[in-house]
């Protein structure tokens, strides 16, 4: 079983039916359209995308909440889409999620102890006393003194502390994979840095793997071994985070990188006038044919409208779904070579 990754998602599809007046079917939102990816043991896979990219739907489909329309979600060798009831719950025990809104995801009437213990109760693990001990243990692990915080309620906590409680709750069942959906996006920058450090510490201490979903490419790059870039329900590019930043191959990845305002004032005037992606994300009810990014892509050709580009390998562990990637496949340096400096995207 050594070859099997911890999580292997294959050709996942999720769609939502939009209903108009009187419940008549109005259209279909193509939220996730055939995504395949894997999270290996002990690694962090970052998934980056803007609103409407389908990244949150991807997380929910992996958790089977709700179940995807089609595709496979193999977690520790078992396809979750074929399980139901208690067998699904038992498998999912090792896969936990942390969401964006720390206040919204905690019941305001419960104490911190009861919030953190609840998954243990739901899985009927341990005696009441043992559960309390375990929740004190994980609170300690996330840097909250159980004696000080255990009896508090969410409104008596700051945003960063709430997020720590949510993380403690996700850890109480000793998962092997934690899915983080914009888990630090609502925090101020200083608490964000603290929580990110906590994720790193837990990764090392508990041998956790993460699927780390966020819109901020700089943040995702700093926490991830590999990064997957999503646009309108499809993957554009997957690769080692260093290589992906040093030589983005998909024009959308390059556009995302160019849009990040860097805290380094050097070259700030030229940064302002970079080539930008044009226009806006099209409606997911009627995604463009072929490559979904083609309507905004500076490199689009007629073939992009007719043929959907498939993810193909272009370098060590590096895949891109584009007919005209920024660096030709054969220009990729042999393994071990120092990547050349990033060339700016050609202007539109």
């Amino acid at each position, binding site marked *: 079983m050594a070859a099997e990754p911890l999580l292997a998602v294959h050709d996942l599809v999720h769609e939502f039916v939009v209903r108009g007046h009187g419940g008549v079917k109005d259209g279909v939102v193509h939220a996730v359209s055939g995504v395949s990816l894997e999270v290996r043991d002990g690694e962090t896979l970052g998934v980056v995308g803007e609103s409407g990219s389908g990244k949150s739907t991807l997380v929910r489909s992996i958790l089977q909440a709700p179940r995807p329309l089609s595709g496979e979600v193999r977690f520790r060798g078992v396809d979750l889409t074929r399980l139901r009831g208690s067998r699904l719950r038992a498998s999912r025990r090792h896969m936990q999620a942390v969401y964006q809104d720390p206040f919204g995801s905690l019941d305001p009437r419960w104490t911190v102890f009861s919030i953190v213990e609840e998954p243990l109760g739901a899985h009927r693990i341990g005696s009441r006393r043992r559960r309390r001990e375990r929740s004190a243990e994980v609170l300690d692990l996330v840097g909250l003194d159980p004696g000080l915080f255990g009896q508090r309620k969410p409104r008596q906590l700051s945003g960063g502390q709430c997020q720590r409680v949510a993380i403690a709750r996700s850890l109480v069942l000793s998962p092997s994979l934690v899915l983080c959906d914009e888990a630090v996006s609502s925090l101020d920058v200083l608490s964000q840095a603290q929580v990110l450090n906590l994720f*790193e510490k837990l990764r090392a201490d508990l041998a956790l793997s993460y699927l780390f979903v966020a819109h901020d490419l700089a943040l995702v790059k700093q926490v991830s071994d590999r990064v997957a870039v999503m646009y309108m329900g499809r993957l554009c590019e997957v690769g080692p985070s260093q290589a992906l930043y040093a030589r983005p191959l998909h024009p959308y990845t390059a556009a995302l990188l160019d849009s*990040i305002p860097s805290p380094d004032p050097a070259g700030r005037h030229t940064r302002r006038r970079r080539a*930008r992606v044009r226009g806006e994300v099209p409606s997911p009810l009627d995604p463009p044919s072929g490559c979904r990014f083609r309507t905004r892509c500076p490199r689009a050709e007629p073939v992009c409208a007719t043929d959907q580009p498939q993810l193909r390998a272009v370098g060590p562990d590096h895949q891109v779904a584009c007919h005209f990637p920024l660096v030709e496949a054969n220009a990729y340096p042999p393994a071990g070579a120092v990547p050349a400096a990033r060339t700016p995207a050609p202007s539109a």
Partner: protein
Amino acid sequence: MTGPLLDVTDLHVTFALKDRTVHAVNGVSLSVRRGETLAVIGESGSGKTVTSRAVMGLLSPAARVAGSAVLLGTELIGLTEAQLREHRGRDIAMIFQDPAGSLNPTMKIGRQVTEAVRMHLPLDQAAARARALELLDLVQVPSPRARYDDYPHQFSGGMRQRVMIAIALACGPQLLIADEATTALDVTTQAQIMDLLMDLQDELDMSMIMISHDMGLAATYADRVMVMYAGRVVEHAATERLYRHVRMPYTRALLDAVPRLEREPHSLFATIGGRPPDLTALPPGCTFAPRCPRVQDRCRAERPELTEHETGHHWACFSPWPDERR
């Protein structure tokens, strides 16, 4: 007229609660020159938004405002609502984080812009409509004529923010305050909107105050940067100077906490502990002292004033970091 466009001196804002007083802004002074962009940076609760709203006269009646804010020679603090309305829109305008919440959902986009034009300019309906179309074109709403009769829900977030900018520009303000105006937008849309604001600023010779939590955004788009903490300005300098020669430990902590593309995967952030102080019970000395890695005894007893220690570089700190070019 020479001199700064807006001059704020020793601004204080407090909110009275039942048994306590929230000290939201505690002696802020700032000035904005013609044509420049000033970034006011801070975390939630730092007083950056309250400062700008006090200047605009947009705070609730529960707020007590003291100090001075002189715009083009006129003192704004203490003006009546009717007097303030004279200035709002004409001299000074504001755009906010949430464009959806600022537009009327039941009114067509074009009419909202036209009304904003007519509020301040003596134009008839047809002329105001023509001006509104010009403005929508100026903020690069594609085919403004066709979209004039659309409702806000038919616009994306980025397009709604463009409409808000068109409304803000209706009467050619000399100062635009952008309060987290791109925070709710996607990063590629944010870049488009910021480019638009910079172009408009050049074209219309407008000054801008950019209120943000984002150190990266300020580094890219502002001429000068002011950092606020617990209702006070703690460091202030021209952008390149501030980022390369950070002195105040809080500013340094903020910069250290920003994720950077250059860093290796899994590298840790240099962080500080603690939380911002309770604004109803501020400590006597430096408000950052309880979290400061360089704190000394003096910092806890005495409040450091914002002082120009080096030409153009102000900081409020007894124990600044040595100047090392970053």
